[in-house]
């Protein structure tokens, strides 16, 4: 039955993503849509800011605007997080200020749409921070990703003149016309099911057994909906959507799961509608879905069959591996969430990934390492664009044709940028893990002096590998056992998140800018068709070979070794 439910959820998501994609394409094309009535609000924003939303920007101006406003958000977040004790209101539980490296990590994390959390929500963030830093950045960082993709759409369009639209306008409209309406619907649905939305402080309960318990509450519903929808993932509470307030039952779990992958899938269809290349969009969707299923199926099987290491106790594992999971979701729905959240760079969890079976851990990490099977809002398709450039180049070499994509010739400059972007991700992950492993291994008594790794052996290595993978993929989930709230992890992961966010946006937009300046070549008999199943296979192969070859050695030292150790 739970397998059927998983299939059902995926079909419902795709059925919703197709019309949403069409709507997004129309919105960016400036056609009439349902939410045009929001225009006065947006115009009010632009009037106050003194922004002419109709002024077209070229690729350099777009990037400049993107980087500038992100820098302002970063400074704002730093200030707010380091002054929590001064927050004049909305801090009823007297939360302390963050120390500088933790504030740096958190500010970068939310600005980059990562939402890696080295703090725990209910003890580390005031209501003021939860709303004015976290919730705010969850909207605008997702809006930034979508706007970057919109700029790429315009660059790739055949009639492109080099103008990529107005970044501010695209970013704001992504927030008000895509994220906001869906977030409101989800937040209301969550609230109906018992997710709190209150500004009162923690309440005191005396239990039946006479214990006194404080129950943290707060404005949970509005934050949870946007963290699911915008591939953010940073929960209101420390354990994210495993917490019954964030995710009260199987229905809310279904809605939150759909929200994880909805916009990433919709963006593929938006691409097809915007560029009028539906066949190409279907090819990309097929490749991404194939990759998603290749991650999903083994993970579901592995979680459902339980933890092999517990077999010695002969307990009943018919419900699957239950450490770190909730009874109301069960193993299968937790596995689906785990794969969806890692494949899309969301990073929210409804079960503790650290306690997943080792085989599942491999696929969760692989999802983030390949980072293109749906991927983050906007940036997922941008990553795929990089892989497409490389696949076109490789197939061009194989069949001896000039590599071209969407009527534009791909030349040395574009390939160089694509390769740099594609290799950056493995470099950040592997170099980061190497530095951490070396620091650990060269310490005379790492357990006492560093205290990072509560789990010994292969799993300890996996925890470090996972942390860097998650940072570079801007995912934000973690093998949360890792003692990561130290200056070492805060600073290093912060730097990795920054590079993992902005270089893969800057590079592809630069390629787009170069594309836009090129002459459009009409299709001929010599054109390499990119919308065919054959090209889909080449593309899939490029991603898997590149990813697998680069990451397999590291995975072999961590989760694969752990999986083999219990046989």
């Amino acid at each position, binding site marked *: *039955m739970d397998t059927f439910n998983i299939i059902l959820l995926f079909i419902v998501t795709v059925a919703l993503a197709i019309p949403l994609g069409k709507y997004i394409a129309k919105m960016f094309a400036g056609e009439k849509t349902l939410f045009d009535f929001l225009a006065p609000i947006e115009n009010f*924003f632009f009037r*106050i*800011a003194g922004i002419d939303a109709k002024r077209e920007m070229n690729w350099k101006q777009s990037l400049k605007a993107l980087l500038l406003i992100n820098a*302002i958000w970063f400074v704002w977040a730093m200030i707010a997080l380091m002054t929590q004790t001064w927050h004049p209101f909305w801090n009823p539980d007297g939360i302390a200020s963050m120390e500088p490296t933790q504030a740096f990590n958190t500010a970068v994390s939310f600005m980059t749409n990562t939402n890696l959390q080295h703090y*725990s929500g*209910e003890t580390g963030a005031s209501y003021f921070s939860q709303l*004015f830093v976290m*919730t*705010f950045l969850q909207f605008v960082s997702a809006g930034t990703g979508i706007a970057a993709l919109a700029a790429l759409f315009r660059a790739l369009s055949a009639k492109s003149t080099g103008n990529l639209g107005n970044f501010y306008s695209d970013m704001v409209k992504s927030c008000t016309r895509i994220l906001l309406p869906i977030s409101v619907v989800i*937040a*209301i649905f969550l*609230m109906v099911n018992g997710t709190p*939305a*209150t*500004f009162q402080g923690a309440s005191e*309960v005396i*239990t*039946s*057994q006479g*214990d006194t*318990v*404080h*129950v*943290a509450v707060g*404005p949970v519903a*509005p934050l949870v909906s946007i963290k699911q929808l915008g591939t953010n993932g940073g929960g209101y*509470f420390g354990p994210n959507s495993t*917490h*019954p*307030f964030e995710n*009260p*039952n199987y*229905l809310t779990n279904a809605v939150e799961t759909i929200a994880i992958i909805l916009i990433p899938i919709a963006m593929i269809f938006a691409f097809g509608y915007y560029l009028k290349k539906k066949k190409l969009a279907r090819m990309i969707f097929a490749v991404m879905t194939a990759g998603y299923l290749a991650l999903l199926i083994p993970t579901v099987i592995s979680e459902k069959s339980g933890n092999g290491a*517990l077999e010695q106790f*002969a*307990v*009943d*594992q*018919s*419900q699957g*591996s*239950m*450490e*770190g*999971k909730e*009874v*109301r*979701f069960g193993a299968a729905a937790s596995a689906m969430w785990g794969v969806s959240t890692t494949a899309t760079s969301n990073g929210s969890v409804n079960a*503790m990934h650290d306690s*997943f079976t080792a085989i599942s851990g491999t696929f969760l990490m692989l999802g983030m390492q390949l980072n293109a099977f749906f991927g983050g809002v906007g940036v997922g398709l941008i990553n795929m664009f990089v892989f497409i450039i490389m696949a076109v180049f490789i197939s061009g070499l194989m069949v001896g044709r000039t590599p071209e994509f969407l009527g534009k010739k791909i030349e040395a400059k574009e390939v160089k940028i694509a390769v740099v972007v594609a290799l950056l991700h493995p470099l950040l992950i592997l170099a980061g893990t190497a530095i951490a492993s070396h620091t650990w291994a060269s310490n005379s008594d790492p357990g006492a002096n560093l205290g990072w790794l509560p789990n*010994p*052996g*292969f*799993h300890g290595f*996996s925890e470090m590998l996972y942390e860097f993978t998650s940072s570079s993929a801007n995912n934000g989930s973690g093998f*949360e*056992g890792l003692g990561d709230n130290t200056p070492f992890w805060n600073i290093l992961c912060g730097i990795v998140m920054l590079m993992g966010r902005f270089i893969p946006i800057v590079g592809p937009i630069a390629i787009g800018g170069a594309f836009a300046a090129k002459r459009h070549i009409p299709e001929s008999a010599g054109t390499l068709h990119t919308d065919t199943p054959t090209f889909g296979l080449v593309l899939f192969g490029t991603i898997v070979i590149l990813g697998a070859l680069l990451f397999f050695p590291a995975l072999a030292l961590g989760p694969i070794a*752990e999986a083999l*150790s219990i046989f």
Partner: protein
Amino acid sequence: MKEFSKALRLTIVLIIFFGAMYPLFIWGIGRLMPEQAAGLPIVKDGKLLGYENIGQSFTDDKYFWGRPSAVGYNAASTGGSNQGPTNPAHLELVKARLDSFLVHNPGVTAAQVPSELVTASGGGLDPHISPQSAEIQIARVATTRGIAEDKLNALVASHTEEPHFGFFGTSRVNVLKLNLALDELQ
């Protein structure tokens, strides 16, 4: 500098809109359903007994036990164990929990114990156990309280929540609600 001022001003209006107006709007809608928006509290005679979906620690023999919790059901600082599947400390803990359960429930064998009774949940507040986990505790609760097992069988059955629409979800028993009903019984 002009660009900077534009971006700064846009940031300020967006912070106000998405950081304050959006959550306040949701909060306002929540006023229409005060129970749900407060997190479904269980109140009796003006006293807050708990929340429907927030599990509580039950360790006494006269109550049905919920799942182990890595944070001792501390709802102000939640979390999971984050122990890896092959971590020796984890395996020891599972063994200790199983041994303790079997001692308190004579007649029950390890093979009858669902794994969720010996593993910690992700949030540390899991309010549910499976129906089987409740059933194997009936004999103990009946003996401790001196109630007929039949009565408890009926109570567990009436507190078993089936999947939504019959297929969507898992079968489960809310431990807090079950135990509150148990106290009412006498």
